[in-house]
């Protein structure tokens, strides 16, 4: 068990935070993500549970995280990386984790992040005819959008 944690600690250019016995955060540079994911997969982290984005609007960054799991060691490794909000481009991980393909489609639609190497990104996925800024970004105001596009009902009467 300890062996794999030591191996994770030796990953190049990664900042390791051990939050719990079975939950490890690995922070890496944007350029190293794919390499790190590949090394982790070789170590036995076969399952990509979730890949998604946190919009750190104050820092002007998107935080992209990959939650990995190993059937062997029963450990969750969470790989995090940051990209610029103004020019958000990441490299696809679907060659390493096939399930990343769809997660990337989702984040590219919901956050407007460009995923290089994933040909499906940019095609409409969940949304249809979306014209506003990507909705999951922090600067998108959902309440404002819905009050502009839809009409709320104001029931005046006391009708029961």
């Amino acid at each position, binding site marked *: 068990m300890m062996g794999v944690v030591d191996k994770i600690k030796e990953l190049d250019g990664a900042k390791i935070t051990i939050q719990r016995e*079975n939950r490890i955060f690995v922070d890496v540079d944007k350029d190293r993500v794919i390499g790190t994911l590949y090394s982790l997969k070789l170590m036995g982290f076969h399952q990509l*549970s979730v890949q998604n984005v946190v919009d750190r609007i104050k820092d002007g960054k998107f935080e992209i995280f990959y939650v990995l799991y190993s*059937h062997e060691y029963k450990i969750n490794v969470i790989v995090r990386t940051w990209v610029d909000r103004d020019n958000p481009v990441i490299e696809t991980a679907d060659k390493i984790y096939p399930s990343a393909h769809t997660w990337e489609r989702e984040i590219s639609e919901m956050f407007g992040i460009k995923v290089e190497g994933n040909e499906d990104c940019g095609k409409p996925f969940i949304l249809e005819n979306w014209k506003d800024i990507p909705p999951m970004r922090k600067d998108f105001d959902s309440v404002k959008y819905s009050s502009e596009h839809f009409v709320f009902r104001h029931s005046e009467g006391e009708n029961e």
Partner: protein
Amino acid sequence: MNKSYELFIGPNHPGIPGNFSLKIELEGDTVVSAKGDPGYLHRAFEKAMEGRYYIQNLALIPRICVPEPDINEAAYAMAVEDLMGVEIPERAKYIRTIVLELARVANYTMWLGGLAGTLGLYTLAQWSIGDRDYALDLFSDICGARVYHMYIWPGGVRRDLTPGWEDSVLSYIRYLKNRLIDYDNIFLKNVMFKYRTKGIAVVTKEQAIEWGATGPILKAAGVAQDVRKDDPYAAYEYLDFEIPTLTDGDSWSRAMIRRWELENSLNMIEQAIKKMPKKGPVCAKMPNPLKGYVPEGETYAKVESARGEHGFYMVSDGTGKPYRVAVRGASHTHMFTIAEKVLVGQRLADVSHTLVSLDICPPEIDR
């Protein structure tokens, strides 16, 4: 003349489990490509959660997965508790376990009916959904609603059990165990069932691991992975249960795994009721929800749903509202990574049955 032609299954189609669309390309009767089209149930949960207090999200989270809402509540509560460092009372752990397992039972019973429905055996669908209804009434007794329980919340559970509820559960379990014999007779031991499901939609062990499968798909392929065992939450560490595995990875094996787990769940509820402390608090003291804040941090809480690993990745910025909640539904991977590949080469008649066999839950994908 074009050899292949396209067919939309869904969103308005009985063969699709929920409001979801599947575009398949057929050559004769054989699928040559399948593409899922989600978004019909997209309600922007993750966005809505960012605008609400932690406790207000209680009204939202059960709606992420309708057939089995409790897993969402549990995962959400666990994420918040993890960030706050709250330990929930012992009795609450057991109550959570019972509720979660009962929800699993309800889900599997309905799932059996659904699978039978896709194969044209409506009798079992009528039976099992009717029998599931008793479980919903049991939920209603303790939390006041049949479907959206909003019962598990950060800190524990919302109310103590009502007097005599355990007995009602036990008698329901006895009833269901008797009914399972009938289910087996009409469906699972039916020669036609075997005929229709053996060797269909095979996901081998290697594929399952490579594609990131979880839950029954992985178990049916021969990997004994289960969050309840690997990273025990609620009271699972005190319970004695085994993870069933089979090796074929076909539709039949998955049905069997679920049938097996259904029985396991029933036994676990019995165990939990026996072991549960008879008295004690069921909810830890929590801060005022309108002001109460959760310390800054990030966490990933996961539970075992009926479909596989269900997780909440939660980021808090130290205010009263979550900064970001990302939901991992098992169906996301199961649909796009697995079903799209597995469907290729299937006959049209098996499409809807394959989807149900992989247990695709569209609200979990769309969120």
